């Protein structure tokens, strides 16, 4: 188990900048996520850590050892590839055994470890099969066993669940999370699926256009996005443009928006009256206003609704401003199109982000 660090790591392909001066610290034993849209540089980062790419400038460190120019086969990382990369000419057993064979592990110990690894991923019965005979989910487990059996210093996962169907994906999330806790290994996981990152990560970094835009725990990221991009990328959100009209003493900030005044419990550092900001409010943060809600009351008209079972999603409008609101357990109170309703939102759920930041 080892910590992993990127120090101003930059990777150019020709003149195209894939990764732009990324600095990152992954603690030993952590399940760390690199999250971002396709082309943001997350896979390039992972491949620099694995050693398939050499950084154009900057460094990769395992603990305090600089490994930027160490070849991939000398890094002792275990990688799970997006397409699993199981060797079709070897059996499941031989696939898992390969890394131990390379490491000249004695044959009795080798057998034990392969069998243990296969049983950890619940695949002990399939040892003699060819990878082509396995389903996607089973191949995924073998790929995981093959990476884990060598007891790598770092486990690297490159979109490992993207080829699975939705139900299996949820199952494997828990599976990988469980394995990570059992083995207690430093793991870096690349994905573009924000729900995967939120549900599994100890901490995550969001990347955009080759740079890291925010690092934190899932809860921090969701409730306190640092920019419009992060707010939109992680979950759905409503972004209401406005101007700061009042900054309380170390406390609430009030913003004038097209829907009326909104008060936020968070005050970003250095904010001042007159600043343009956007208020990020999650769809599920809105509730139908009760009589005792004093602040953050919004009067809007219901345009349309979409019933999704556990939640019902509403499109609402006031003037030019549209809102998306989702209500849980919608069996009881139902808005119908054309209704004018009053909604309330807790100041804690109103997050201010700099206006126009990373809107791309």
């Amino acid at each position: 188990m080892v910590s992993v660090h990127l120090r101003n790591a930059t990777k150019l392909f020709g003149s195209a900048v894939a990764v732009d001066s990324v600095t990152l610290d992954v603690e030993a034993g952590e399940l760390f996520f690199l999250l971002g849209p396709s082309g943001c540089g997350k896979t390039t980062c992972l491949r620099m850590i694995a050693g398939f790419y050499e950084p154009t400038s900057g460094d990769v460190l395992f603990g305090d050892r600089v490994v930027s120019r160490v070849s991939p086969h000398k890094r002792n990382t275990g990688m799970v590839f997006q397409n699993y990369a199981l060797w079709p000419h070897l059996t499941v057993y031989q696939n898992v055994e390969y890394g131990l064979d390379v490491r000249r592990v004695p044959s009795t110990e080798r057998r034990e470890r392969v069998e243990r690894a296969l049983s950890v991923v619940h695949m002990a019965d399939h040892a003699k099969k060819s990878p082509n005979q396995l389903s996607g989910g089973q191949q995924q487990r073998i790929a995981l066993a093959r990476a884990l059996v060598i007891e790598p210093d770092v486990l690297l996962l490159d979109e490992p669940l993207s080829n699975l169907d939705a139900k299996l994906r949820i199952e494997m999330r828990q599976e990988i999370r469980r394995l990570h806790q059992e083995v207690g290994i430093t793991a870096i996981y690349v994905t573009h699926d924000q729900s995967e990152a939120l549900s599994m990560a100890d901490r995550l970094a969001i990347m955009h256009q080759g740079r890291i835009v925010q690092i934190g725990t899932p809860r921090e990221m969701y409730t306190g996005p640092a920019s419009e991009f992060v707010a939109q990328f992680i979950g759905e959100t409503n972004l209401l443009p406005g101007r700061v009209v009042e900054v309380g003493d170390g406390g609430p900030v009030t913003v004038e928006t097209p829907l009326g005044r909104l008060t936020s419990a968070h005050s970003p550092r250095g904010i001042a009256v007159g600043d343009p900001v956007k208020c990020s409010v999650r769809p599920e943060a809105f509730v139908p206003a009760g009589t005792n809600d004093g602040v953050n009351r919004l009067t809007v008209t219901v345009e349309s609704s979409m019933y999704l079972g556990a939640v019902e999603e509403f499109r609402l409008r006031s003037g030019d401003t549209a809102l998306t609101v989702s209500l849980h357990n919608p069996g009881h109170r139902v808005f119908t199109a054309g209704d004018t309703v009053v909604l309330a939102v807790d100041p804690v759920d109103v997050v201010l982000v700099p206006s126009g930041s990373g809107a791309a």
Partner: protein
Amino acid sequence: MSRASGWRSRYDASPGTLAVLAAIWAFFALFLAYPLARSVYQAFFIDGRFSLTFFRLIATSPVQQQCVLNSLNLGIAATVLTTLVALPLAYAMTNFRFRGKVILQALLLVPMVMPPFVGAIGMRQFFARFGSVNLLLMKLGVIQEPVDWFGGAGFLGVVILEALHLYPIMYLNVAAALANVDPSLEEAAQNLGASRWRLFRTVTLPLVLPGYFAGAVIVFIWAFTDLGTPLILHYRNVVAVQIFEKIGDQNVNPMGYALVVLVAAFTLLFFYLAKRHVGGQRYEMLSRGHVADRERPASRPVAIGIYVCALAVIGVALLPHISVLLSSVTDRWFMTVLPSETTWAHYGQVFSHELTLPSIKNSLLYSSLSTMLDMVLALTLAYLLTRKRIPGGWLLDATAMLPLALPGLVLAFGYVGCFAGWGIDPRRDPTVLLVIAYAVRRLPYALRAAYAGFQQTSITLEEASLNLGAGPIRTLRRVTLPLVAANLVAGAILAFSFAMLEVSDSLILAMRERHYPITKAILSVLQRPVDGPYVASAMGVLGMVLLTVSLVAAGTFLGKRMGELFRA
């Protein structure tokens, strides 16, 4: 960002890679560029001064004009004929499903197993003035007088023999192209209301055209520069024969060089034209995923129609083979439809004659050495081209594929001139140059086979091995090679069997009897009085058996991808 690091980030330029690249370029420079350049120089410069004298001579000499014209006509006629035979067959075979299709498909490829010049030996017997066909027809009372089938000059005979030998290459190319057309593209057109003919004209045909041109250019170049068939049928007024006859006085008369340059210019032009049609369009539709079955069951009349046509083609195409087989067991065959007396003695001769047995040994030696060289080159090139970002990769690829457009004749003629007086002078011992000539000529097939193997093998399979701690060598040995082995073996078999039957460069480079490979020995034995044609036929049959076995083996390794190997 300095220039040096810009280069580094663009290419994988480790010292080892650069050294290998340099070695490969040196090989091409010495054995491909130098002979060509020297031929061009000799053709254009007299005593160091630029001159168009020889081209003027070609242009003004009616004989030479006729030769060039004849060769072009041969190429065009063979291409047209193979198209007429192969296109409908390929369309029917890829679109219909019926009983016995696999066998019929295999039979269609059989004619490839014998080089046309061997077929010519037997066909002379069949179609001579008092040959089997005329005698049979006279006996049946269809004709009164013997018909001169190949018309004094023999043009028709050469074209027919070449077409019968080459149509499988055209067929494989077109069939592969048709099979690659994603049926959903055609379904989309049908969905938009296109009639069947309109669909073929506006969707299928344009998508298949690149494959067709790839086949057509191989057929054209082959027929245009074929040496063996015209020689045997005594159709001497073609460029190939003219060049062959000028080998002897190469040093005093640069006319041969001028003809070589002319031929090379023509073939390169046609290759370029075909390439422009093929270029870049080939892979666009290979987006695999769900590919619906394009075959539909054939109704009984359709199936019968296909059978009749295909069997007719196969029957005609096998005539040369049958004639050679008959001829190889003939003791007496004079003024009769079939041989009047038969014997196995000619096969005995093959194994006892002072010329034939060494020639078989020579061929085996040359071919296996050239195959090994091909494998090393193909493996290295395919690895560099698919796995490394190297400077000038496309140029390296194009150079390695160039021999497809380069007749063996041109290459061999250049070698004789270039390496006179060197340690590898073919006048002394042609082994090295024959091995290299065979290897260079068959490199495109070997390279395509290896290249396809690497392309089908996801690079992540190798990365997974590196990631688990295996070094590059172990990864190559344990992961890459086993995965591309089938392709390599297929490429090797093809390279080997074609090298065994290489005609033009064998005729030119092997100058002494003890160095003769099998093809030149066949031609030489043919000249012997009395039993010459029969012993030559027996040798041809052996060659046929060898190539059949090789192709079947290659086919088993490659399966449906066989067709890809015969693409330009």
